[in-house]
């Protein structure tokens, strides 16, 4: 029986009766929640006093939509899903039948046809349909492309599953090349290809990979050692400011400062580690959170060194190992050395490969460390601290090495971030960043590198993609800013994904130590540690 507001009366009610009742409940709750917040809006008038603007129609629409949605779900959605489940069990089909229904050859051909037609008309879309409909057409084209790619992936799913890591790395390594080539074909010139690739490589590629690296770094602390760290962004900040300050003040090169920033962050990891050695669980969580806030507040207030909230700008770019530079004015500027056209895209592509390399380094170190005594000690600590001590494992050094290693990768990512932005300010190191990184680790299924990478791609790529929804302006009027809804949707997605898959995207684990053969174990057998 479905979970509804009043289960004891469900037995006698028909689905429609039940759905009506549930819809009324939902409507009443939504009305109560939103009556003041959507029905009214506080606004400043000309003399700067607060006044109320009434929006009852919007409230009405929201309430009615919720009621209809709830009604349809209870009356049709739930029985349908239940029937589907029974049918699947009866026919003995695998649980992925929903996907096989969704990805079918006719749909795939239709999607390709839509893409082809819309691509042919690309130039004249605005003239044919008008700007409003053309926006929708482009959105439909994007959806069709995504669908077609997904069906291709689905078709080769067993092959992809078998060679996931190798294929993933190959796809990541060729991503900038593919983007540039596709865009060059699209615009008809190589220069156009480089110019258009900026957004794709920077916003999607580099941005996601930074979060992948941070989440893999935090995974050592949270996923392997089971220590809940809510202030990871502090090490990111230490790394970023280490490069920003030493780079601008002393003109040192990125390649010298990268290890230095990592060492400095590791040092701060140990500094945090010492006082929290005896703390467990939520006490540990709040102290790490406090540590993150302390670092941020010190950066804001220590104006003589850090320039306060204004931040540090003019951070030098990374050079190509000292051989070529990416500053147009330098004599060894890359375009002059290689004798090619000037473009800002070279630097972005170089940064992309740099962060990809750093990510792979993190993954490599994590995988190797898991097989070493220290890595096994981390996992043992996560499973049972008392048993660890009884077996003679030094929990002090085990915890400190976990904090230091995790912090070091945070520091690497931080100095890369400073080099990429050319500007750092305390705004980038707020608690929200720590929360996002932790969410990626947990959503990915703690401890699973592939799951974490997928989670970062979905969450960060998804929110970045929301920036592209400008055509909605034509629907809701020019005042409508899709940007504003980005974090609202991000928060809701966190809740929905977690409720849907509490064990994360990848729910199984590869055991580190095994007796005869390596078998994947369910994620629910691994503990999350008590800090």
């Amino acid at each position: 029986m479905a979970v509804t507001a009043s289960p004891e009366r469900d037995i006698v009610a028909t689905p429609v009766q039940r759905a009506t009742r549930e819809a009324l409940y939902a409507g009443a709750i939504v009305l109560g929640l939103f009556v003041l917040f959507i029905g009214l809006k506080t606004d400043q008038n000309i003399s700067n006093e607060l006044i109320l603007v009434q929006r009852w129609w919007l409230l009405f629409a929201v309430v009615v939509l919720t009621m209809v949605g709830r009604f349809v779900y209870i009356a049709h959605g739930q029985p349908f899903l239940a029937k589907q489940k029974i049918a699947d069990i009866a026919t003995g089909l695998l649980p992925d039948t929903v996907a096989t229904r969704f990805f079918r050859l006719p749909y795939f051909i239709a999607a390709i046809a839509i893409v082809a037609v819309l691509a042919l008309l690309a130039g004249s879309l605005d003239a044919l349909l008008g700007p409003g409909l053309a926006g929708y057409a482009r959105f439909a084209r994007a959806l069709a492309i995504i669908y077609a790619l997904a069906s291709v992936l689905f078709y080769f799913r067993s092959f992809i599953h078998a060679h996931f890591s190798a294929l993933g790395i190959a796809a990541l390594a060729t991503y900038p090349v593919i983007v540039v080539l596709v865009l060059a074909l699209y615009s008809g010139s190589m220069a156009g290809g480089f110019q258009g690739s900026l957004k794709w490589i920077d916003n999607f590629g580099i941005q996601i990979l930074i979060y992948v690296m941070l989440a893999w770094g935090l995974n050592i602390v949270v996923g392997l050692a089971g220590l809940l760290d809510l202030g990871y962004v502090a090490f990111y900040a230490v790394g970023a400011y280490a490069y920003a300050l030493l780079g601008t003040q002393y003109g040192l090169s990125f390649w010298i400062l990268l290890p230095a920033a990592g060492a400095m962050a590791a040092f701060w990891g140990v500094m945090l580690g010492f006082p929290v050695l005896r703390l467990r669980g939520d006490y540990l969580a709040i102290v790490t959170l406090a540590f993150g806030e302390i670092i941020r507040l010190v950066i804001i207030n220590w104006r003589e060194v850090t320039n306060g909230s204004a931040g540090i700008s003019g951070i030098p770019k990374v050079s190509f190992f000292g051989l070529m530079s990416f500053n147009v004015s330098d004599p060894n500027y890359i375009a002059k050395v290689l004798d090619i056209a000037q473009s800002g895209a070279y630097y972005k592509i170089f940064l992309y490969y740099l962060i990809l390399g750093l990510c792979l380094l993190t993954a490599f170190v994590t995988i190797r460390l898991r097989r070493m005594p220290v890595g096994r000690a981390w996992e043992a600590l996560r499973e049972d601290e008392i048993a660890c001590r009884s077996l003679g494992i030094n929990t002090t050094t085990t915890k400190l090495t976990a904090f230091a290693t995790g912090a070091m990768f945070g520091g690497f990512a931080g100095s890369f971030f400073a080099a990429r932005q050319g500007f750092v300010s305390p705004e980038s190191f707020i608690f929200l960043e720590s929360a996002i990184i932790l969410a990626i680790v947990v959503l990915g299924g703690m401890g699973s590198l592939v799951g974490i990478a997928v989670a970062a791609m979905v969450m960060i790529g998804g929110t970045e993609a929301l920036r592209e929804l400008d055509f909605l302006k034509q629907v809701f009027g020019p005042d409508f800013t899709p940007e504003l809804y980005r974090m609202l949707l991000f928060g809701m997605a966190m809740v929905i994904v977690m409720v849907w898959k509490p064990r994360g995207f990848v729910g199984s684990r590869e055991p580190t130590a095994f007796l005869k053969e390596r078998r994947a174990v369910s994620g629910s057998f691994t503990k999350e540690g008590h800090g």
Partner: protein
Amino acid sequence: MQYFVQQLINGLTLGSIYGLIAIGYTMVYGIIGMINFAHGDIFMIGAFTALIVFLILGALFYSVPVVIALLVMMIVAMLLTSLYNWTIEKVAYRPLRGSFRLAPLITAIGMSIALSNFVQVTQGPRNKPIPPMVSKVYNIEGISVSLKQIIIVVVTALLLALFWYLVNRTSLGRAQRACEQDRKMAALLGIDVDRTISITFVMGAALAAVAGTLFLMYYGVIAFSDGFTPGVKAFTAAVLGGIGSLPGAVLGGLMIGFIESMWSAYFSIDYKDVAAFSILAIVLIFLPSGILGRPEVEKV
């Protein structure tokens, strides 16, 4: 000396607000063992509801006595904020009960992001100032005590007395304490565990809403992002007092309030939060389960 007493009074006011929010954290932690990260934003929702009610009262009536206005603001804020926390518990935390420990923490963080951005989207990102409601200041031998501060301390004391009575003397409180000790046993003895947990969330939200109303009255301004800092401070207070302990939450709240006002008075106002967080870390080194918390004994 006068200066010191003055700071003591300021600290008491601030500490009362933190204490009221901290009770919500500590109660939820005690009963289901999760950090309700969205509680700071529940406090902000309470303050915003009070703000909107204040504007409605101003628009509907020519003049309203301050006492009645405050009461109406407080009651509406308590009702609506409780509804928010009740819904959130049902949607985001209940499906994950019995799942692993970090899952509800992540949904709580997600809810916190969603709530503050919801208010930003629907009400706009700017600070919302209101005209001062209470401006009377008493001068007693060189120490100025504003009526606002008296209201805050008196309301907090009254609510804490009521709350103490609820938890220690009623069957509802007994049910809560039973669920806290052993949820399964409590269910076997005929206690509706789900309902008790829901009521705990409602009570925490009601206290946070009062804190929000008092915050709005005291500072006269609220913005969508104002839930985070008081939320983290209150959480710090709850941990400092020993999370799960109700007197501990109030004690921790008062301590954080005193530390903050004393530090800004005698040292530097910029570093008052750093001081509060550092003292938390130092206290926890020597008392790893807070001041009044019971140490957790793990059986092997």
